[in-house]
């Protein structure tokens, strides 16, 4: 119930291509879905987040697509650049706070490499 399953584990994309990372969750009470970006030696940083009242959110080259019925959400990186090479984590939680279920549950991460 508390898992967030992320795929693929690693991804290699050519510069200018589209990077797509997928996540699936089980707990239907989750209602906050952020994506975090982590560079080597750094802490994760929030990239973009969505709540289930919308099916898509776009910020610059980054888009979250959300499918509530399938309990899936994905990150699309358009025009991928070498500087996007990092590890990406999806996460889910209950918003606002909700006791012991209020944890941010992270997926296992996707290492993205964008080749020049």
């Amino acid at each position: 119930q508390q898992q967030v399953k992320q795929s693929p584990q690693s991804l290699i994309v050519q510069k200018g291509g589209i990077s797509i990372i997928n996540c699936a969750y089980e707990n239907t009470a989750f209602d906050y879905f952020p994506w975090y970006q982590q560079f080597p030696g750094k802490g994760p940083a929030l990239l973009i987040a969505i709540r289930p009242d919308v099916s898509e959110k776009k910020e610059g080259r980054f888009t979250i697509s959300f499918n509530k019925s399938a309990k899936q959400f994905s990150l699309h990186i358009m025009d991928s650049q070498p500087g996007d090479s990092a590890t990406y984590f999806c996460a889910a939680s209950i918003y606002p706070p909700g006791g012991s279920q209020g944890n941010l549950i992270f997926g296992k991460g996707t290492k993205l490499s964008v080749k020049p």
Partner: protein
Amino acid sequence: DTAVSQTPKYLVTQMGNDKSIKCEQNLGHDTMYWYKQDSKKFLKIMFSYNNKELIINETVPNRFSPKSPDKAHLNLHINSLELGDSAVYFCASSQVMNTEAFFGQGTRLTVV
């Protein structure tokens, strides 16, 4: 002007020792967290504090204890360190629990 700062950045210590990692945030946030990232990059929450009260305590060994002297600080104390404690520990904070969390740069703990 670092938002969430933790010290030290690297910590190498022997098994059985007791160590502490300090964390401070200057964002005025109400909630602070400790996460553990293992060698496979998996991030797992260990503790969170809201208004100086522990509100989530995941199933971590009781050798780990968070201490919050004030709203801006959440330190992590670890007793009787074991080899399996080797990991990167991240402190984080957020205004409201489980909204945008700001992470520190991490402390790489190596137990030898």
